[in-house]
């Protein structure tokens, strides 16, 4: 989940009325009207922006000169200005449903939109699982969305969708493992029922073991920029939960990470699967987390959406090794994204493959109970 303090620039007033020449950075508050807050360095409260596109640090100042920032909450209440192109910063169809529907209905068919709202809608975990279900070379676990507001709701979802134990249950809008519960058997539903997320929309995902023969669990993050594929990092853990803060995360993994990244880039099946994923999502920029077992050629999809943390603030005083790692894993994707943002004609919605974004049925109706109509 992308997560950042609201930059100072976003807190100021809209700097000027659209000239028409500038593009728009489209932002919104979550549908709930609630945000997590923290104190900044000066001791003042600031909201944490979640599930929005985070740009490479190097492009941010230039981006501010290229675009005007438009809040859905303001834009939707006034006259609709003509916009030459739009960067949709909203990366989660659950969190920003109202804004994405409005963006699609208002500009979706007429203005080039980077990360088109219809493509963002398709990146919802359960929809994404359906769209990517038969990508050759990729194991895509089934996923169902439901409202977890009773013990029966969890068990009914399990039974109705043909799941087998174990399954992973997590609240929608949550990533990085927050609120994630692994249900091993019928006695474990209580873990989800007694969670602070009880009552909210949840995802249930079939757990697929992705451990290697060496007893290590490997997770790769792949970045898609305009159809190009970049390996962002590979993390390892002694258990199935592989996150930065996982207890079992393995350190001293840098050399092996380089070897595995090269192996992934050389793996024709993996590269073909990634290319197909990029084509099907329709997103200009997104990330994919995938469990990998290169030796056995098994690749298990975890998630694929535009809300991935890819670019972080450059730390000062980095070591040569860190700089080299940056050059290898981050800079190429950042450069590609920078170039793509400046070229609306190359965005997915403008391509033949993106005709479904400009035409046909409008934004998919994502109902509260998870159905897609």
């Amino acid at each position, binding site marked *: 989940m992308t997560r950042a303090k609201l930059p100072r620039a976003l807190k100021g007033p809209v700097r000027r009325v659209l000239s028409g020449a500038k593009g728009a950075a489209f932002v919104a508050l979550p549908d709930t*009207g609630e*945000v*997590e807050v923290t*104190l900044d360095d000066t001791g003042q409260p600031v*909201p944490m922006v979640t599930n929005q596109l985070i740009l490479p640090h190097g492009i941010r100042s230039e981006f501010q000169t290229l675009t005007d920032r438009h*809040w859905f909450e303001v834009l939707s209440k006034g006259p609709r200005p003509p916009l030459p192109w739009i960067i949709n910063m909203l990366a989660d169809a659950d969190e920003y449903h109202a804004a994405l529907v409005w963006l699609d209905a208002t500009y979706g068919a007429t203005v080039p939109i980077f990360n088109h709202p219809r493509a963002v809608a398709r990146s919802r975990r359960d929809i994404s699982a359906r769209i990517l279900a038969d990508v050759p070379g990729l194991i895509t676990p089934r996923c169902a969305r439901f409202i977890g507001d009773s013990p029966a709701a969890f068990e009914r979802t399990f039974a109705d969708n043909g799941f087998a134990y174990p399954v992973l249950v997590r609240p929608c809008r949550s990533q990085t493992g927050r609120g994630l519960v692994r249900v091993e058997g019928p006695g474990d539903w209580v873990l989800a029922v007694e969670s602070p997320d009880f009552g909210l929309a949840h995802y249930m995902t079939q757990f697929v073991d992705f451990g290697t023969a060496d007893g290590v669990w490997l997770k790769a993050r792949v970045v898609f920029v305009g159809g190009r594929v970049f390996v962002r990092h590979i993390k390892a853990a002694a258990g199935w939960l592989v996150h930065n803060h996982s207890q079992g995360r393995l350190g001293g993994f840098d050399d092996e990470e380089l070897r595995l990244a090269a192996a992934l880039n050389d793996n024709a099946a993996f590269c073909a699967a990634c290319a197909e994923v990029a084509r099907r999502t329709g997103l200009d920029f997104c990330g994919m987390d995938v469990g990998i077992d290169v030796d056995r050629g098994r690749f298990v999809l975890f998630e694929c959406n535009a809300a991935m943390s890819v670019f972080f603030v450059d730390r000062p005083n980095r070591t040569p090794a860190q700089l080299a790692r940056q050059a290898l894993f981050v800079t190429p994707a950042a450069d590609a994204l920078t170039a793509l943002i400046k070229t609306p004609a190359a965005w997915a919605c403008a391509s033949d493959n993106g005709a479904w974004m400009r035409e046909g049925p409008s934004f998919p109706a994502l109902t509260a109970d998870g159905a897609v109509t």
Partner: protein
Amino acid sequence: MKPGPRHDGLLFRALPDSRIAHVAVGLGGVPYLTMPNCLMLHGDVDGAVKTAYQEWWHRAPGFPARAKRVINACANADEYASALHDLDAAMTPQVPVFNHPRAVVLARRDMAGAVLNGIPGIEVPRTLRFSADRPQDMMRAFQTGQFAYPVTVEPCTLRNGQGRVRVDHPMDWQRAMRARQVGRHHLMVQARADDARFPWRIRMTLLGQEGAVEMYRAAGTGTASDLPPALSRQDLTRLFQMLRRRLPLDFWTLDLALRGPTHLVLTEVNPGLIAVDPTSAEGDLRAATQRNIERLLPALARVLMTPAHWRHDAWTLRPLAEPVARDAG
């Protein structure tokens, strides 16, 4: 009317323990945060306070340890438990504190019920605070508290009936259980089968030595032709005096259901100006709230600028470092 140098004054604010706040975007395109359940300062009062007090957020660097007067903006014992605890520990009896944290905790709905119990004319329904992490916790609280149907259940941090579920019979527990918020405390309150016959509420606001009363109709009840029972001025004066004696808050409100001229039923207690936040109420309550704002703002400005007149007796309450209540569930 300035109480002293600005650096001597502290406006104490905090993030909710949940770290969740409301956010909105103003028409100018500026997002702004609203902390729930806190003292809200409007217009001129806000300006006056900021010239005489420096705002400090709990856990920010540079705690102004030498503050000589403190306005506590944290107005809910459940929402700001850690901040209230820390403020209580940091202050000494020599420092006047507007809405002292010990008194704010005492205004917690279950504790306020005990404090206000026994005032002639005010009925305090049985109330139990409990955690509802497990579905069976609600039924357990019902039994532990020796309740009878109907009861209402609501999270402690919501106000004005938000999140309130009425349980009239055993079949309603499922609905209440679905609405519960795991990880947060809830209140179970004894209700009555004929509550709907008594739509009128009064909101009593106590501010320093002043008091105000506004009538409003509970949401979804009553008809336009209803007339509220009349309350005498003498009754109100007597009530204000007794309430003031029982709860040492500088600024607080309580909502009461009006069953007759001398029969009031306690429904809600709130410290601070949260009760006059016009965005938090609907319909009749919003209008009543707006009238309260207009009536009380000048008085509020006066009280906030006169620390010598703040309630000092809150210091005699139990320190928050000591256990204050045993929860059920």
